[in-house]
Each structure stands twice: as structure tokens, then as C-alpha cells.
């Protein structure tokens, strides 16, 4: 392995010392096997476009799985997408689109040798990616905390069942306690009528007071524990009324706000109001508005939605990995741009990273509606 310096130099006629041995190495960035910068840049671009084609096919497989799944069991997508926040999805879309714009501008700045501007624009692009991943982290965290993780991490149906059971137990307890209070009141009335036994009356009254406190506590807890919230067309489907409603009604139900709308339609059709007992909603004090009631479906429905979250995590996870890789690449060319390595003739790395970043953006443009919007 011992090499003389001369041999080493000869041994490495490529790249590491980029000055061409062959007389056409005017630009130090020109690799030895290209005739000129133009050929090198065109080769690089062709290579990048081919790579992007492979990326599209790789995601294509996953999109294909999404469509097959959706066709097989539409219901779970209808249930699942309601737990994704459209606002944050849209926010991230805007973020990525904006960062794509600054990326494109950075490519232009590199071509015009506007070094400082280029570094700033790349910095903004990087921050855009960072913001995207930050929002994603918060979204993922919320999903996991509600038991809506992928595969074995999906426990939402169990959680919903627990909440439902707790609610039913509490309701039963209230009924029992109230029955007990009534019985005890009867006993007090009897005791008073027969006269005497004032000790017994006193202890019964104390018991009643304690029971009433318990009932009050349970009743106070009950609405926090669960609340009937928006149902979907699926409930109608489950009860076999989709055919009655026809497509128009089904479409209305899909955009409908919830029970109230559906019950109106049901009333107009002369159907009984919706059976709310199967539904469970779980109030999360940390969330606001409509999102506050986290589970809006029966445990059975939530169980069926398990795979939606699996594919949601697969798609956005793979995309997220690409975003992180893209951020790394942006950071790398940002440092190179800061060192002033890019010139009007040599700026291909900025261009190529830009192409990659636009693809990452483009994939999200498809993911957002497919996962967050349509149902």
C-alpha cells in the first residue's frame, strides 16, 4: 500500500485534484471526462431528471396502494380524514410553495452571481422546510397521543371503547345512586310517619347528601367525558338508508356539519332521529372548537379506519424523509454559496438541488388533497 507521492498523483488523475491533465481543464470544476462545461451541466441535469423519474415511480407505488385501498374500503378514508387538521395541512402547503419560490429565486441569484442574495434565499428555503417539519412533528405527536399511530401504534378504537365504557358505567352509577336516594327518602318518610328512630333518619340523610354529591360530580364529569358529535353518511349507510337518500342526500351528508343536518334530513324522510348511543366523542381540553371532541365515531368505525392512518404515515413519512434530505442538501449548497463557489458558469449544484426541492413540493401538492381534503 506504500505509494510514492508521484504515484499517488498519477493514481488519482480524476477528481481529487480537479485540474485536468488533458489540456481542456480550464474550469477547475470541469471533470476530466467531459469535453466542456456545457456537456457537464447537461449530463448533470439529465441525471437529475432521471433520478426524479425514479422518485415519482417510488411514490407512485405508494399512491397506487392508496387508490387500491380507497377503492376497496372507502369508509375508512371518510372516517380517517376527519381527524386531520385541514388548517395545518393548508399551512404546510403554503409553506412549501413559498419555499419553492425562494428556491427558484436562489437558482436565478446563483446564475447572476448575487452571492449574498443567494445565501439569504437558500436560508429562507431551509427555514420553510424546517417549519414544515415542525408542523408535521406537532401533527404526528397529536396523532400518537390520541392513539392514531400507524399499525401497532393504532389504539384509537380501544381508547374510544374505554371512554364509551366509562361513560356507560358512570350513567349506570348515576341511575343507581338516584334510585338509592329515592329509596332512602322513602325510608325516611316511613320512619317519620312511624315516629322515633331519629338516629336512623339522621344517618340516612347524611348518606343521601353524600350520594347527591357523588351524582353531582359524575354529572359534571359526564359531558367532559363524551359528547355526541358529527355523524357521517356512513352511519346512514350502516343503518341501510343510503339507498333511500340517494346520491344527492349522500353528497349533502358528506358536506353536512353533523348530526343536526342529518337528523333534519332523516326527519324530512320520516325516519327516526339518529341513534346517538353508539357514538363516542372524547373531549380534549387542549384542543379548540370542533377539534375538541376527538373521537367522533363508534369504536367499530374507528377500528376500520386503522389502515387510513397507516397509509397516512407511510405517505407523509416517506415524504418527510425527502424533505429532511432536501434540507440537508440546501444547507450544503448554502455553505458553498457562502464560500463563493458558484459562478455564472458553475452553478449546477444549486440548479439540481432546486429541481429536487420542487419535486418534494410537488409530491406534497398531491398528498394534501388526497389525505386532508377529499372524502
Amino acid at each position, binding site marked *: *500500500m*506504500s*505509494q510514492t507521492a508521484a*504515484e499517488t498523483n*498519477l*493514481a*488519482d*488523475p*480524476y*477528481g481529487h485534484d480537479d485540474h485536468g491533465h*488533458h489540456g481542456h481543464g480550464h474550469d477547475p470544476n470541469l*471533470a*476530466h*471526462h*467531459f469535453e466542456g462545461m456545457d*456537456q457537464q451541466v*447537461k*449530463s448533470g441535469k*439529465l*441525471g437529475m431528471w*432521471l*433520478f426524479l*423519474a*425514479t*422518485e415519482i*415511480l*417510488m*411514490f*407512485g*407505488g*405508494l399512491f*397506487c*396502494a392508496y387508490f*387500491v*385501498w380507497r377503492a*376497496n*374500503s372507502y369508509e*375508512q378514508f371518510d372516517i380517517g380524514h376527519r381527524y386531520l387538521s385541514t388548517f395545518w395541512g393548508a399551512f404546510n402547503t403554503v409553506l412549501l410553495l413559498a419555499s419553492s419560490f425562494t428556491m427558484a429565486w436562489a437558482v436565478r441569484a446563483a446564475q447572476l452571481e448575487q452571492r449574498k442574495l443567494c445565501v439569504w434565499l437558500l436560508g429562507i428555503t431551509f427555514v420553510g422546510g424546517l417549519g414544515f417539519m415542525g408542523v408535521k412533528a406537532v401533527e404526528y405527536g397529536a396523532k400518537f397521543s390520541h392513539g392514531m399511530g*400507524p*399499525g*401497532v*401504534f393504532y389504539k384509537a378504537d380501544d381508547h374510544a371503547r374505554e371512554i364509551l365504557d366509562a361513560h356507560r358505567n358512570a350513567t349506570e352509577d348515576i341511575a343507581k345512586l338516584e334510585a338509592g336516594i329515592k329509596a332512602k327518602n322513602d325510608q325516611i318518610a316511613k320512619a317519620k310517619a312511624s315516629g322515633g328512630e331519629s338516629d336512623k333518619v339522621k344517618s340516612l340523610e347524611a348518606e343521601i347528601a353524600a350520594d347527591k354529591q357523588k351524582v353531582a360530580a359524575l354529572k359534571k364529569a359526564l359531558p367532559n367525558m363524551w359528547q355526541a358529535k358529527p355523524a357521517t353518511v356512513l352511519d346512514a349507510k350502516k343503518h341501510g338508508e343510503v339507498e333511500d337518500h340517494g346520491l344527492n342526500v349522500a353528497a349533502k351528508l358528506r358536506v353536512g356539519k353533523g348530526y343536526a343536518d342529518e337528523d333534519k334530513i332523516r326527519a324530512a324522510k320520516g325516519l327516526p332521529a339518529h341513534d346517538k348511543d353508539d357514538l363516542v366523542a372524547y373531549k380534549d381540553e387542549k384542543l379548540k372548537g370542533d377539534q375538541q371532541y376527538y373521537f367522533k365515531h363508534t369504536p367499530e368505525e374507528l377500528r*376500520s379506519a*386503522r*389502515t387510513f392512518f*397507516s*397509509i397516512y*404515515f*407511510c405517505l407523509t413519512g*416517506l415524504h418527510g424523509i425527502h424533505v429532511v434530505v432536501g434540507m440537508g442538501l440546501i444547507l450544503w449548497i448554502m455553505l458553498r454559496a457562502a464560500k463563493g463557489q458558484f459562478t455564472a458558469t458553475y452553478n449546477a449544484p444549486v440548479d439540481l438541488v432546486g429541481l429536487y426541492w420542487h419535486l418534494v413540493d410537488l409530491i406534497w401538492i398531491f398528498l394534501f388533497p388526497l389525505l386532508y381534503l377529499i372524502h
Partner: protein
Amino acid sequence: MTTTTTQPTVLPQLPKKNFLNCERGLWSWLSTLDHKRIGIMYLIGITAAFGIGGFAALAVRTEHFNGSEGMMSADNYNKMFTLHGAAMVFLFIIPGIPAALGNFALPILLGTKDVAFPRLNLFSFYLWCAGAVFFLIAIGMGGLDTGWTFYTPYSTGYAQGGGVIPATFGAFILGFSSILTGLNFIATVHMLRAPGQTWFKIPLFVWGLYATAVIQILATPVLAITLLLLIVEKTMAVGIFDPALGGDPVLFQHFFWFYSHPAVYIMILPAMGVVSELIATYSHKPIFGYKFIAFSSLAIAILGFLVWGHHLFVSGQSTVMGGIFSFITMFIAVPSAIKVWNWLATMYKGSISLKTPMLYGLSFIWVFSLGGLTGLHLATMVTDIHLHDTYFVVAHFHYVMVGGTVFAFLGGLHHWWPKMFGRMYGEVSGVISWVFIFVGFNVTFFPQFMMGSQGMARRYWAYDPEFTFYHQVSSVGAWMQAVGFTLLLFTLVRSIFKGKPAPANPWGGTTLEWQTASPPPHFNFEEGEEPIAGEPYNFDRVEYDKEKGGYYHKPYDPNTEPAH
């Protein structure tokens, strides 16, 4: 531009500086960006993989020689045939011709210094190594018994041994190695061609590699995502392929064959390219129907994407779909037959020299035709229902993969061996090893057609006594092949040390690689002697030089050979 030397360019001794001796030491190889060295490193790697896969094949055949009284338990037998299939497909045959022979030859055939992205090329090689390491880890973790296809739900739920995840991850990494090689080749063919080398003046091996690269780029990413989903399914039970969770196990088969059927053409298209070179060179006659051969490669590459469903005839897919897939599958016979017909027409009235590479080339035509014609039985839905998952299928794809790809690989290896190492291999022992391999191959696999058509199911550990004779003949053939391959390895390795120095053009080849020294200098052509490409198969330019024992090229003359 041309340095018109009328002197023969044949050099009896090794040139002083060539790509093998211009730098020394292990590190100079491991860190090389020279496509020739990377090609040779691939060659060593895939030979090792072929050794492992071949050992497993011999174990399987030896097991079957004694019926159910064999040496292996059923579980070990399952692991052994899986190892054979996985090692041969993912580690040997897919990278075989493109990454080893292609890497070595492609830039020289194009008259350029290197591939478009030399660093990426080295990276592909290390990805291959990483994939191979994951396969070794899979063996170390108890192997896997899924067969090389990793079908769900067996692989996700019931497989024996802990090797499924490392093996699928290894195949995932190998996929990227393959993708990046293909990407590199496409960019090279588009951007780096010798002056005068228009699209219809590139050698047919390059057309084969180009068509292969198109498939590598478009099909392999789908395998990548499929294997990732399989891993996620197995570790986290996401339910994509699990019917209990709303998934679909047949979806895995669709995904898998969407890659793996085109992958069959990743295996055969470069082989067809090699054979085109061999037939023209050793017939000393311009290739017949150049454009037909070139376009039929592209046609196969495109049609290859539309036929995956013929692997699913018995999976419950609809009859209409099956019928469409069946029709398109048969359509592929057309471009394949165009090639065979053109090769035969090339040989017609040619001056054929039966050197070892040509023997492999001729074997290819014979064996590949048999493999292709038996494919028609499998493409027909009615007969496939009978033949599905029998030894008939095993025999069919071995006739195409071994008889086709491996024979072409060996032919190409002998053909370019003098160019790689500057030494001639021993022709006599080369021919003897060919006899063993060719005869052994047919003895191994022809009986499998017969027992398959009589109902012997593939992958079975035990079999009925009526199949004993076929199995024993088949096992004898496998041992014959083992002898042949051992002799072949001995012949080639011996030549590096004891072979006669090779002239620049020992075979009378017309393509550009024969116009540089054997072995070529570091940048493929001496500075100032970069070639101008004319017609790729113009045998008028090659003349035999008795004194020097090799052919030499008359320089390109634009007057006698006008550019098209």
C-alpha cells in the same frame, strides 16, 4: 484529427501503463473512479455471489437425488432454495451483465473516457456490497424460507427464521445500486459518445444496455417501495397486505411482478446485446438488421411493463385481465423472434470461427429459443393453470435465465477477457468447460420440463417415486455444471498469470474497444488517439496480421465510409 497510423496497432507485449498497473495497492482499487476497475470489482463480487447461489443449487439438487431420504430437513431445504433464488437473482444475474461487463465495456464502446458520473458509479458498487452484506446478515439470523419472491402473507406472518427483514432490506439497497447504474448508463449514452457516433452507430450491446437502463429506472423504484411496505407491514402490522385489516395480499404480487417481470428483461436484454456482438464478431460479417435488433430491444423494454399479470393467472384475478395479459405476453415473442432471426441471418454465409465465446453465443440462441417457446405454454391461460408452480416453470425460466443470460454473460466474459487483463485464456480448456456447462445445463433442466408437465410441483421437499428418475438425471446434470464452472474459473484465473499476452484485437472485432490496447490505458484511449466512430460493424476495416497474431484496424476513412 485522426492520427492515421498505417502501422498495426497490435502490441505483442503488455503496454507499459494501463488501467491495471497505472496505480497500485488495494486502496487504489477500493477508491477508484475508473469504470473498468469498478467493472472488475463487480465481476469479483458477482462471482462470489454466484458461488454461494451455485452451492445452494447443488445442495438442493443433491437433496433431490435421494428423494425424501436426503440430507436436509424440510425447513433447511426451504431455506436453501430461497438462498439459491435470492442470491442468484438479486446479487448475481441482475447486476451481472450491466454492472460487470457493461461497466467495463460501455464507455470504451462509446469511445469515451468514463461513464457520465464516475463517483456515482463507485457508490453503486458499494451499495451492491451493502446489499450483499444484508443478505449475509439474513443468513446469519436464521435464513428465510419464503422463496425469492417474498410473497405475503407468508413472509409477513409465517416465515421461519429471522432473515426476512434483512433480506428484503438488502434487496431494497441492491435496487438502488441497479437504479443508479441504469441512470449513469443512460446519461452516458446520451451525453458521451465518440465523434461521429450517431444513435445508429452505437454497438448493439450499448442498445441492449440502454433498453435495460430504461427498465432499471422505471421498474426498480416500485420494487423499492414494495419491499419497504413489506418491512413496515412485518414490523408494525400496518395492514397493507393483510386482509384481516382491510389490506390485500394479492396487491403485493401485483407490485412485486410490476418490477420483477420487467426485471426478467433487465436480465435478458443486455444478454441479447452481448450475443449480437458475439454473433457479428465471430461470423466476421456485419450484423443483419441492425435497426431491427436495436428497436426490438426497446420494444421488449416497453412491452415488458405490460405483462406482469401473467404471474397471477391463478391468483383470482379476472379472466378478462388474464386474457389481456396473456395476449400482450405472447406479443413479446415478436421482438424476441426478430432478434433470433437476425442473428441467424447474420451467420448465414458468414465466416464463422467457433471460439469459446461464439460457442456460448450459439448455445444462447438454441437454449433461449427453447426457453422462449416454452414460455408460450405459460402465457396461455388454459395451459398455465395446469403448469403453474410446477417444474415446467422452473425449467422454463432456467432455460431463459441460465441458458440465456448466464451463457451470454460467459460468452461476453471470454470475449472481453483479453481486453480486461491483456491475456488470452486457454482456448482448449475454455471449450472443454463449455461442453460441461452446456451439456450439464440441458441434462439438468430438460428433465424438469418433463416432470413438470407430469405434475411435479416446484419447491417441494419430497416427491412421488415416479419422479425419481427425472430428479436423479437432473442432479447429475447439476454436478456436470459444477465441474464445468470450476474448470472455467480455473481457466480464466490461470490465464491472468500464465496466459499469452493478448493483442489489441484478438477476435477481429470492429467496435471501438478493439481499437485500443489490451488492457486499455487509464483513459481508455491514448491521448491524441481518441477514436472517430464509423459504422460499428464494418469488417472491411479489420485485417488479420499473421506475424503479430492479431487483427488491426485500418483507420477511419470518411471517403470510403460516408457518415450517415
